[in-house]
């Protein structure tokens, strides 16, 4: 009964005209950037973060969350029509989606992707709604050692799932922690690594770093080569899947939703991994696996459901523990903090309007996406035709204004350009940005909880091993860190599909 009451509060917040507007803007822009290769949800969220400063915290989070799940929807459109995944999570959709389009079945492919995403998105919100309250109640009992070790575990899983070399990903995480700690010491207000620059007293901003690493550097990489996009010219007709299509897809959607939701809760690339695993499962359970890769509709429905369900799951650690499981959620945590809201176990009690408002807005956002995606597919195809030479100055313009609007400081523009160069070089030298950003956000929280734990235990490190959850987290983290040394486990790690965040 309580749940229904809370959901009532949520809908009363989400249905306010201003929040509906922000929700619409979020899902619209999300779909747009999902369609456009070269800019992903993280870049778009950091670009639009400044536009939310004048709004209420709930409107801001509703819009930013909309960008995230909207991008997952949009990503499938390019996979099906152009064979270019807009997002890493839509890579698998290319396999059968594009084949369906080539066979003149682009309509049903797009339709089932949209419906699959809608159903999975809705199911995952239901899961989030049911799981978040009990988890929050448990999380209230966590102390600094649990928080510290959970963050170590989260960061380790992300590093484990990073592309290529693990030591390189760990170096990036270490750099992220150092950058995150720049500024005044939260305990004794002593300036650290500020190089006597007044601008660094409050630390380096999240927005200039993210925009540099994911916005500017992406433009630089794309400028290297002449980008050519061949659009598969086809008439899209009959978006509504047939009864046969539905019969073939329903099982795939349900399995994909469950898989995506539970994998989404784990740190790292829930959306990407779940879409790949879902494809593998569908191929295995199918009565005609030979059709996969040649236009099997289950190969579109399953992964699309999985990647959308994962977005709902990813909210659980953020909203109940205050620990972001991936870079997108780290951006959302940054947005919460800018608006003076601390996500975590107490959020549901202290800010029920925001907590349930955001959840309710996702139901509405999913309906908006369904309405948006089906009739507007023609428009998205046109958007794909915008040449990059027109697009890149506009992306740069948005980055520049966006970063300046956050703090009204030209210094931040320089920081963004610097991290644009750093991000570009990182790509050249095969280093990944995601561990850096997550560590940047978690760094101060980790330090705080580590110092508190040591003060609590009077300098005794056994505090991390005598408390069950802390010990379990550390043991899993340690296992993941040493696993690449064991050849069998290293091979297993290399087989896991990896997240690519832009």
């Amino acid at each position, binding site marked *: 009964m309580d749940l229904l009451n809370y959901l009532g509060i949520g809908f009363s917040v989400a249905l306010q005209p201003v929040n509906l507007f922000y929700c619409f803007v979020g899902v619209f822009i999300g779909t747009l950037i999902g369609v456009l290769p070269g800019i992903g949800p993280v870049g778009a969220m950091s670009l639009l973060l400044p536009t939310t400063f004048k709004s209420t915290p709930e409107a801001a989070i509703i819009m930013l969350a909309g960008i995230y799940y909207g991008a997952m929807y949009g990503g499938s459109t390019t996979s099906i029509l152009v064979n270019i995944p807009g997002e890493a999570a839509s890579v698998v959709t290319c396999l059968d989606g594009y084949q369906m389009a080539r066979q003149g079945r682009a309509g049903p492919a797009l339709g089932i992707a949209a419906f699959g995403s809608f159903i999975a998105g809705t199911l995952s919100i239901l899961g989030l709604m049911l799981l978040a309250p009990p988890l929050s109640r448990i999380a209230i009992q966590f102390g600094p050692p649990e928080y510290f070790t959970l963050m170590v575990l989260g960061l380790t899983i992300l590093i484990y799932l990073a592309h290529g070399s693990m030591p390189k990903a760990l170096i990036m995480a270490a750099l992220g922690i150092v950058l995150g700690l720049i500024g005044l010491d939260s305990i004794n207000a002593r300036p650290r690594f500020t190089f006597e620059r007044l601008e660094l007293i409050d630390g380096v901003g999240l927005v200039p770093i993210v925009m540099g690493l994911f916005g500017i550097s992406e433009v630089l990489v794309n400028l290297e080569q002449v980008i050519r996009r061949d659009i598969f010219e086809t008439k899209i007709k009959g978006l509504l899947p047939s009864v046969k299509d539905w019969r073939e897809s329903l099982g795939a959607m349900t399995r994909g939703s469950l898989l995506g939701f539970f994998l989404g809760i784990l740190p790292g690339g829930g959306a990407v991994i779940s879409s790949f695993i879902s494809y593998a499962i569908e191929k295995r359970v199918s009565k005609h696996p030979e059709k996969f890769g040649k236009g099997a509709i289950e190969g579109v429905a399953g992964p699309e459901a999985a990647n959308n369900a994962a977005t709902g799951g990813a909210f659980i650690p953020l909203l109940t523990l205050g620990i972001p499981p991936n870079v997108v959620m780290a951006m959302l945590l940054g947005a919460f903090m800018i608006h003076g809201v601390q996500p975590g176990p107490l959020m549901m009690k202290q800010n029920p309007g925001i907590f349930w408002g955001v959840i309710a807005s996702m139901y509405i956002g999913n309906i908006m996406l369904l309405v948006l995606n089906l009739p507007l597919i023609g428009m998205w195809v046109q958007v794909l035709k915008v040449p990059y030479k027109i697009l890149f*100055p506009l992306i*740069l313009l948005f980055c520049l204004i966006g970063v300046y609007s956050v703090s009204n400081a030209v210094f931040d523009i320089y920081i963004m350009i610097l991290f644009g160069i750093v991000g570009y070089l990182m790509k050249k030298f095969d280093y990944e940005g995601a561990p850096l950003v997550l560590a940047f956000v978690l760094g101060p929280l980790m330090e705080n909880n*580590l110092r508190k734990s040591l003060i609590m235990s009077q300098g005794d490190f056994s505090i991390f091993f005598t408390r069950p959850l802390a010990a379990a987290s550390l043991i899993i983290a340690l296992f993941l860190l040493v696993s690449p040394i064991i050849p069998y486990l290293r091979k297993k790690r290399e087989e896991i599909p990896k997240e690519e965040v832009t």
Partner: protein
Amino acid sequence: MKKKDILSSLFWLATGFGVCYGGYDLELGTLRDPGSGFMFFWVGVIMTGLSLAVLVKAIRMKPDQKGVGLLRGEVRWAKILSVLAALVLYAYVFTYLGFILSTVLLLLFLFKAVEPQKWSWAVMGAVISTLTAYGVFQLWLGSQLPRGFLG
């Protein structure tokens, strides 16, 4: 790959040392009461160790094949450097020239010099994009964009 990893690991090695030194300088404190530099120092130690691991692995790698390197291939360096220079210059003159003038000039440069397009389109694109951005950020969202010497 070998050269890239050696170069990058040496850079991180130096950075790791720098962070360790900075942390030590900030005071490590004691385990009972960790100081401001405690976390920096240990993260620096980890960074140094990892850089050494990458370095050792890179040294053991087979030599790179000819023609594979960072500065070779068909990378359009001039374009990348000109965009970066334009962005730095933009930041430098931003408050003096003001948002509108500096942004129109920047966009004109990006539309015309980096990826050449017709003058009419470049001018129109630069002016319309700037004014739209001004309308959204300054007038609607109330950002404080600089007016410059004209304002």
